[in-house]
C-alpha cells in the first residue's frame, strides 16, 4: 500500500503535538496549576474546536411567566385513603373484668391504630367511666371492615411575583360508628409562608401548621407515610396547632451538611387532635417548641439528626400553671434504599383542673408522664414491571412506658411489619400487622390488628 506520508514525519509531528512549546510555555506563564480537589466544580469545556456541530442545537424551553403555557400559581392535590382492617377481641384494649377507673387511664395502650390518622378500631368501654385520654375511633369493634379513612384536598397558591405561599389541607373524615354518624370536615392545616430574603433559607409561617417537633410529622399523611399506622409516640408529637413558626437553615458546603432550626409559638402543643382543645388557646400563653437539626447529604448517605423540645401550658385545661414539657431526639439515615427512622420522646404533664379536649369536657387532668420511642427500618426496591413502581418492606418496633399520677405505670411494646406496593404513579397499596404487647402494669388483652390501606393520590 502506498501512502503519502512517512513514519519519520509523523513521529515528529506527534512528538510536537505532545510537547509543544506553546503548551509548556502557556502552563509556565500562567503559573503552577492548583491541586485538584476530590470534588470540585468544573468550568464548561475550554475552547476546543468541535469535531462537528449538531445541526439541531437547542437552547431549551422555559415556560412563559404568564399567558398560555405559564405554570398555574394554584395547585390542587389530594388523596383518598380507603382501608380494610380486623382487630382482635372487641377492638379495644379494655380488658374484660377490669373495673379500674378511669378506664382509659387503666390501659393507656388503647387499641392499636388501624389507619394513618391513628384512629383505633374501638374505644367502647362498655359504660365504664373514661376521662378523655382517648384516640379517635373508626368504631368497627372486632369486626373485619372496610374503611373510608380520609378524603384529603390540598390547595397551594404561590403567586410568582411574591415570595409567598398559601397552603391549606382540608380533610373529610367519614365515620359511621356504632354511635351514629361522626363524619367531620377537618381543617388540618391552613397557613401562609413568607420567605423574606432571597439569600437566606429563612421561612416564616403563620396559621395552622404541622408540628415542628421530631420527624414523624414529615410522614404523617397516608399518601406519604411508609406504612399504614403511626408510631406509639405519634400522639405526643404530630398534632397541628395555630400560631407562628420560623425555619432557618445554614448549609455547610465543605461538609456537605446543613444545620437547621425550626421553632414555633402555638396555641397548644403537639398532642394529636383528640387530645387538644379545638384550635383555641385556653390560657392565652403560647406553647413554645422547636427542633435543632443536622443534615448530612452525601452521594451515598443521607443522615438527619435532631433534638426537639416543647414547653408551655397543658393543651387541655385553662390553668397556666399546669405545664407540659416534652423533649426528644430523632435520627433518619438513608443508604442504598434502606431507610432507618428512630425517635425518642420524653413527656411530662403537670396536674391541672378540669380539662377540655376536642372529645369534650372531663373532670380530671392528672399529671402524666410518658417515655417512649420507635425504630423503623424500611427497604425500598424500585421496580418497573407493569404497574409496579416500587416495593417496600418495613418493620417497626415501638415501646412506651407511661403512667398517670396515682396509677400503676404501664409498659407496652409493639411489633409492626408490613409491605407496600407503589403502583403506577398515583396508587399505593399497604398492608401491615401490629402485634401489641402489654409488658407491665396492664392486663394482657387480645388487641393485635391487621390493617391495610389503598391510597390514591390526585
Amino acid at each position, binding site marked *: 500500500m502506498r501512502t503519502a506520508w512517512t*513514519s519519520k514525519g509523523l513521529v515528529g509531528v506527534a512528538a510536537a503535538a505532545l510537547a509543544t512549546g506553546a503548551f509548556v510555555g502557556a502552563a509556565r506563564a*500562567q503559573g503552577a496549576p492548583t491541586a*485538584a480537589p476530590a470534588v*470540585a466544580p468544573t468550568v464548561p469545556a475550554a475552547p476546543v474546536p468541535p469535531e462537528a456541530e449538531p445541526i*439541531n442545537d437547542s437552547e*431549551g424551553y422555559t415556560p412563559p411567566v404568564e399567558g398560555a403555557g405559564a405554570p398555574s400559581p394554584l395547585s390542587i392535590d389530594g388523596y383518598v385513603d380507603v382501608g380494610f382492617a380486623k382487630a382482635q377481641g372487641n377492638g379495644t384494649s379494655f380488658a374484660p373484668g377490669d373495673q379500674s377507673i378511669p378506664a382509659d387511664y387503666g390501659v393507656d395502650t388503647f387499641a392499636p391504630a388501624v389507619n394513618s390518622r391513628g384512629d383505633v378500631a374501638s374505644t367502647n368501654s362498655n359504660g365504664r367511666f373514661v376521662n378523655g385520654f382517648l384516640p379517635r375511633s373508626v368504631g368497627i369493634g372486632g369486626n373485619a371492615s372496610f374503611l373510608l379513612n380520609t378524603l384529603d384536598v390540598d390547595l397551594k397558591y404561590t403567586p410568582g411575583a411574591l415570595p409567598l*405561599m398559601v397552603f391549606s389541607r382540608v380533610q373529610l373524615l367519614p365515620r359511621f360508628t356504632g354511635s351514629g354518624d361522626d363524619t367531620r370536615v377537618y381543617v388540618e392545616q391552613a397557613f401562609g409562608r413568607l420567605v423574606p430574603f432571597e439569600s437566606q433559607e429563612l421561612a416564616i409561617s403563620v396559621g395552622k401548621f404541622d408540628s415542628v417537633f421530631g420527624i414523624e410529622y*414529615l410522614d404523617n399523611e397516608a399518601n406519604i407515610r411508609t406504612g399504614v399506622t403511626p408510631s406509639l409516640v405519634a400522639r405526643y408529637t404530630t398534632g397541628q396547632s395555630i400560631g407562628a413558626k420560623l425555619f432557618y437553615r445554614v448549609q455547610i458546603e465543605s461538609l456537605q451538611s446543613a444545620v437547621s432550626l425550626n421553632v414555633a409559638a402555638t396555641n397548644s402543643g403537639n398532642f394529636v387532635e383528640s387530645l387538644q382543645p379545638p384550635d383555641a388557646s385556653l390560657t392565652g400563653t403560647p406553647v413554645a417548641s422547636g427542633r435543632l437539626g443536622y443534615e448530612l*447529604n452525601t452521594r451515598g448517605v443521607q443522615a438527619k439528626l435532631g433534638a426537639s423540645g416543647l414547653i408551655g401550658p397543658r393543651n387541655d385545661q385553662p390553668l397556666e400553671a399546669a405545664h407540659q414539657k416534652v423533649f426528644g431526639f430523632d435520627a433518619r439515615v438513608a443508604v442504598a434504599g434502606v431507610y432507618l427512622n428512630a425517635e425518642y420522646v420524653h413527656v411530662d404533664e403537670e396536674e391541672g383542673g378540669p380539662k377540655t379536649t376536642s372529645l369534650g369536657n372531663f373532670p380530671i387532668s392528672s399529671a402524666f408522664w410518658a417515655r417512649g420511642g420507635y425504630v423503623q427500618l424500611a427497604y425500598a426496591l424500585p421496580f418497573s414491571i407493569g404497574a409496579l413502581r416500587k416495593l417496600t418492606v418495613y418493620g417497626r418496633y415501638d415501646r412506651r412506658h407511661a403512667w398517670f399520677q396515682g396509677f400503676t405505670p404501664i409498659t407496652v411494646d409493639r411489633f409492626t411489619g408490613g409491605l407496600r406496593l407503589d403502583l403506577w404513579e398515583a396508587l399505593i397499596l399497604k398492608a401491615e400487622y401490629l402485634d401489641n404487647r402489654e409488658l407491665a402494669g396492664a392486663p394482657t388483652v387480645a388487641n393485635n390488628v391487621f390493617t391495610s390501606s389503598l391510597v390514591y393520590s390526585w
Partner: protein
Amino acid sequence: MRLGLFRRLLLGGAFLAAALAAGPASAAPPAAESRGWLGEELPLPLAVRTPQDLAVKAAAEKQYLIFNLLAAGKLAFDGGDFATAAAKWEALLRIHPLDPDLEKTIRPLAREARARAEGQPGQAAAERPPEPTASVAAEAAAVSPTPAATATVSGTVSGGGPQGPGGAVVWLKRANGETPRPAPARGKVITQRGKTFVPRVLVVPVGTKVAFRNDDPIFHNIFSLSKPNEFDTGLYKQGATYTQTFRHPGAVQLLCNIHASMLGFVVVVDTPYYAQADASGAFTIRGVPPGEYQIEVWHEAAAKPTLERVSVGAAGLHGLALRVAGDKRTPQFLPDKSGKPRQSHLGY
C-alpha cells in the same frame, strides 16, 4: 490528576511512535482497534478553579485533541477504515491555529483517505480494503463537513395538558437502517435561578456535557435519580458550576435536594435529528436525509411518548401535526436524593 494525564499523554505518544515505527502498511495493534480511542473523553477531567487553571486546561485539551485526531486517523487508515480516517483528519485540519508542519503533513493524507472512502480512483485501487461498515459510514456522515442533500421536518405539537405543548421534544430515528450517531452539543448550560431550572427542559444529544450553574444567592444541590443518567452535584454555591455528561438516551429528571419544589428535565437523544417545541408547539428539525423514520415525542405531562412513522421526501416534511397526552401530573411530592418523597410546603 495532572501527573496522571501527563503519563497518559506520554504513554499515548510512545504507543503512537511504536505503531508508526512498524510502518504505514502494517496493521494497527488489535488492542487499539478493540477499544474506544482516548480522544472521545474530551474535555479532560481537570478541575478549574482559577483563570490560570482554565488556560492550562484549554492548552492541554487542544494538544490532547490534536494528538488523538492525528493518531486515530492513522490507526483507522491502517485498518482500512478510510471514512473514519478522513473524518478524523478533516476534523484535525479545522483546528485553528494549527502547526503549519502538521497541516502540511496531514492535508494530503486527508485527501487520500477521503478519496478512498468515497470509492474514487485512488492511488492504489487494487489494494482497496472492504467498504466501511454502515455504522461507520453513518458516523462519518454525521461529522462530515459536506453532508448529503438533506431536508427539513417541521410541524406542531398539541396537547400536554394545562401547561400546553411547550417544551415537547421531537426526534427522528431511521425506521430501516442505523441512525447516525450525533455529535455532542457544546456550551449547554442549565442555571438555577429563583429556585427554578432555566431552561426547565433541555434536549441534548448523547455524550453532551451540561453545565449546571447556580445563579441564586443560596446553595443548591442538583441531582437525578433517573437511571442510568443519575448524578449528584453535591452542595454548590452562587456562581459555581458543575458539569455532567449525559451518556445514555432517555429523560432525566432534575431535582434539588434543598428545594423540594424544583423540577426540570434533560432529554438525551441518540440521534442528530431532534428539536424542541416552543410555547405554541411549533418545531423544526433540520438536516434530515430523505427516508423512512420513526418520530417520537416526549413531554413531561405525558405518561408515554407519542410514536409515529413518517416518510421524509427530498422536499422535506412540513405541517406535521403531533399530539402528546396530558395524563401525567407533576408529582405532588418530589423525592430527595435518597428517594424519599418530601412535602414541599414544609420547612423551606
